[in-house]
Each structure stands twice: as structure tokens, then as C-alpha cells.
């Protein structure tokens, strides 16, 4: 959070006319900043000279809390790191602790995790693509996406009793087994949902105005995306075929068949907003594919390993990565052998995307900034933690 931002205010326009740069304050309360993001927009009429992101309005010092509440106690807080898709945050923390202590998760537990986090991914991507539509001025795709997300929330509620902050995973596995008949209901939902993806495509993805708004806006080359540390769909939108689930396999993911969709520049430049949007649309289909395999092939057995109540891992430091909805989420945890971690650091996808906006925004229009934020899928709690 800062207030001291000064760049040249006055400049000479054509004909010796002195023009003044307009400083617009976009956020923290603004309809399209998806929470409490703030941008200081330096604009020349409708054209931005740059948009300076200013973060920290949703800083809840989650990393400091981790040092005070211990390993088990931190699990509910991880939900709040990214409350739009909390499952993968759960999984990141659980994996970090398991790696610190060398705990093996039962196979059924891993399957449950995959099922939960893939449903979470679909829900999160639905929000993302719906919100992109809404930021472009079309509210219908958003309500249709939210409608489907409600059903996913129902399914996850069956699993863990919560609809947003799940607190489903535990160190060593999951809190609860799948309820009876869960697989049947989940597959019935997928049968209903998959044809609807086509409907979204017809409604919005191939809409002429929508394509015009997103194509060729803020393209990111692969090299820039990597050096900015963009991850997940944002990176894949630039054509880098990299998915932590496939390239650094974890949990039960090596057992499933799925593709990693990448941007192809189909409607404009490679790595533009439309590519990032379409990568998310296609990832929804791949998640459905993984879910079908997981629901059909789930093995029997326990879902959670035996973990002592007072969890004291050996001293050491780990850095694990999970593929969250907004990409490679890095969990760095340092233990000193006591019941409390020395340090937890969470490197999230939105954080890097937010840092990239200042460079990306140069020369775009104000309406494009909204498109860029939406296509990078920035979620405020993840940026600030």
C-alpha cells in the first residue's frame, strides 16, 4: 500500500498546448477489480499511459498466523489464501507438511484429493470465464456459470459440509471419505455439465464482439511470461506447455490421462487475452476428463494416514508446488522441530500476474485494463494473503 507515486504530470501537447495527465484511482472499491485491488491509472483521455497496481488492502497476515497456530491448526486458514478455489490451497499445505514429516498418503486419500481439487478447479474457472464476460458487459454468461457452480458447491458440500472454505484436507489425507452414492451423483452432474460447455462457447466464446474485445489485447510472449513468473493458464496462454500436474507429478495425477491445453493465437496474437480465456475453457473439459477417471477408478482403503496429534516434523525446509486454479502455487515451509513452523511463504499465481500488469497496461484503453485483469484471473486474497 502506498500513496507516493509521482511521474511527470504536465507535458506539451501538439501546438504547444499544455495538457495534463489524468490520474484515475481505480479501486479499491470498483465493480471490476474482483475484490479490493487498486490501480493508479495514468490516463490520457481513454488511453492509459500506465496502470500502477497497489496491493495490500486484503492483507490478512496469513503467513504470520501460520507461525502462531501450528501445522494442523493452519489448515482452515489456507482456505482463505484463495477462497475462490480453496481445495488446492488445502492440498498445498498438506503436501508441504507431509513432505516435511515424510508421511505417505493412502491412495484413496489421494484420489479424494484429486476429485475435490478438480471440482474446485472447474468452479474457479467457471467464475473466471463468467467474470470475464461480465467485465465485457455481458452479464448472462456470468449467471449461467454461477448456476453451474452452485451445483458443484452442492457436491463439495456433500463431501465436506462447506461451500466456500472447505477445510477438507488433513495432513496425511482427507478429513472424510466420499459419502455413499457420491460417485454416481458426481458423474450424473458431469453428464449434465459437459454439453453446457458447448453452450457457453456458443453464447460468449465465439461472439464477435467478445472476440474483438479480447483478441490482440495485451499479448504476452512466452519469454516474458516466464521471466514474469506467470504460471498456470496465464503461462499456457502464451504457448508454454507446462502444467505442474503433468511435469512435476504429484498426488494421483500420473495415473490419469489428460491434455494440457495451450494458447495458439487462434483469433489474434499468441498470448493475448482471448488465448488465456480459451485455455481456461479447455481446462474445464480436461478437469471433467480427470474427474471421470478418478470417480470410476477410485480404490478402496483408508483416506487418511495415521498422523500424531502433536505434529512435530524434523527440522528442514521444503518447497512444494501444486497446480492451483491460478497456476503453480508454491508453498515454502521451514520447520525447526517444534510444533510451530518457523516460516511459511506462499507464492501464488495472481501475485505474479498482478506484478505484470504495470508493464502490460502501457498504451491500452481503460476498458482493456478490465479485460486484462479478468483474463489474468486475478483474485485479490491470493495477491495479498
Amino acid at each position, binding site marked *: 500500500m502506498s*500513496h507516493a507515486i509521482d511521474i511527470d504530470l504536465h507535458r506539451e501537447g501538439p501546438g504547444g498546448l499544455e495538457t495534463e495527465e489524468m490520474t484515475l484511482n481505480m479501486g479499491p472499491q470498483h465493480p471490476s477489480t474482483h475484490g479490493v485491488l487498486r490501480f493508479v491509472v495514468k490516463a490520457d483521455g481513454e488511453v492509459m499511459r500506465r496502470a500502477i497496481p497497489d496491493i495490500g488492502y486484503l492483507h490478512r497476515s496469513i503467513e504470520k498466523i501460520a507461525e502462531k497456530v501450528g501445522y494442523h491448526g493452519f489448515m482452515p486458514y489456507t482456505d482463505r489464501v484463495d477462497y475462490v478455489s480453496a481445495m488446492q490451497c488445502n492440498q498445498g499445505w498438506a503436501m508441504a507438511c507431509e513432505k516435511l514429516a515424510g508421511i505417505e498418503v493412502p491412495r484413496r486419500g489421494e484420489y479424494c484429493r484429486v476429485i475435490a481439487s478438480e471440482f474446485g478447479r472447474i468452479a474457479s474457472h467457471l467464475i473466471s470465464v463468467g467474470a470475464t464476460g461480465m467485465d465485457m458487459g455481458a452479464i448472462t454468461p456470468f449467471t449461467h456459470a454461477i448456476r453451474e457452480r452452485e451445483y458443484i458447491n452442492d457436491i463439495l458440500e456433500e463431501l465436506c459440509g462447506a461451500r466456500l472454505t472447505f477445510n477438507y484436507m488433513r495432513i496425511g489425507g482427507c478429513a472424510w471419505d466420499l459419502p455413499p452414492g457420491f460417485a454416481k451423483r458426481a458423474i450424473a452432474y458431469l453428464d449434465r455439465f459437459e454439453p453446457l460447455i458447448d453452450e457457453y462457447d456458443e453464447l460468449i466464446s465465439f461472439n464477435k464482439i467478445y472476440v474483438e474485445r479480447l483478441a490482440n489485447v495485451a499479448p504476452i510472449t512466452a519469454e516474458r511470461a516466464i521471466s514474469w513468473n506467470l504460471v498456470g493458464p496465464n503461462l499456457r496462454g502464451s504457448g508454454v506447455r507446462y502444467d505442474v500436474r503433468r511435469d512435476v507429478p504429484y498426488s494421483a495425477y500420473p495415473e490419469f490421462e489428460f491434455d494440457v491445453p495451450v494458447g495458439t493465437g487462434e483469433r489474434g496474437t499468441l498470448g493475448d487475452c482471448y488465448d488465456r480465456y480459451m485455455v481456461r475453457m479447455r481446462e474445464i473439459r480436461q478437469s471433467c476428463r480427470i474427474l471421470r477417471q478418478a470417480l470410476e477408478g477410485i480404490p478402496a482403503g483408508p483416506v487418511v494416514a495415521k498422523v500424531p496429534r502433536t505434529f512435530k516434523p524434523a527440522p528442514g525446509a521444503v*518447497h512444494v508446488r501444486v497446480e492451483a486454479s491460478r497456476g503453480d502455487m508454491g508453498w515454502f515451509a521451514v520447520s525447526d522441530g517444534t510444533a510451530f513452523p518457523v516460516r511459511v511463504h506462499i507464492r501464488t499465481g495472481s501475485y505474479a500476474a498482478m506484478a505484470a500488469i504495470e508493464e502490460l497496461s502501457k498504451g491500452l484503453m481503460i476498458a482493456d485494463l478490465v479485460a486484462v485483469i479478468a483474463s489474468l484471473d486475478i483474485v485479490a486474497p491470493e495477491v495479498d494473503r
Partner: protein
Amino acid sequence: MDADGIHRALREKFAGAVDPDWVAGEWPIVTVGSASVAEVCRLLRDEPALGFDCLSNLSGVDRKDDDRIEVWYHLLSYRHRHQVALRTTTPRLDPVLPTVSHLWPIANWLERECWDLLGVRFVDHPDLRRLLMPEDWVGHPLRKDFVEPDEYHGISTRRESLLKL
């Protein structure tokens, strides 16, 4: 390149700064002297065989008992699909490190965050301001001896525990 190769390549160039021991693992840990972190990072990025094109994470750890601050650099190569963690330490009283923000743009914010929360000063950083906390905040909250002030601009940070009633 495997972890041993990376370590050997670093030892060749920076025999004095890079620790002869390294820890194997998913992220091989190489300990580096604080003064030469930037040069080591530049080598890691620019040497084609190493090719670390991405700084995945930069985290500071306050080791109060040892009176030092550890800073970890988790580096990733998308080109060669290998990874390494650099560990460096700096005294707790006056933590100073060279910046790597000219090597990877993301380091700009990660270093600002590290300065904000742990008070590590990154020399030559173009814009070392607080990132998450308010500009006029006193202290660095992730230090182990940080004490929360009683109030911030007249807003009290203390409250009665409801359990006492």
C-alpha cells in the same frame, strides 16, 4: 543438468562464495555467500547450460536464535526442466543483499515484500517501498521479535477477549 552438475558449474566460477556442500532433494539446496548472490544468479540465468529463466520464489526466514536472516531463492528452468534452491544468510541487525530484480522482473515485487515483512534491504533495487503494509508502518511484521503496536492512526489493535465475560 543434474544437481551435482549445477553445483560444480557454480563452484568453478565462484569457488569462494559457493559452499562446497549441497543438499540433495527435489530442490537441491546450494548455500551462497550474501555478497555474490546477484553474480551467481546472473550466471545461473545467462549460462545456456544452466538456463534458469524463472525465479519461482524468494522468501526470507528470520532465524532469531542464530541472529541472522536466511533468504531462499527458488529457481526454475522451463527450458531444461531443472530446479535449484539458493540459500544465503545475512546478519539480522543490518540485513543487506544485492538485488536480482534486473535479472527477473518478478524479483521486484518479491524483494519489496521481503523488505516490507522482514526488513531485508536490497541494494540497487529500483523502487524499494513497502508492498503489503501501509507506507507509514513501523517495523517488519515477520520478524520474530516484532511487537504489534497498540494502535495505528488512532485505530486500536487491542480488544477485550470475549471469553472473559
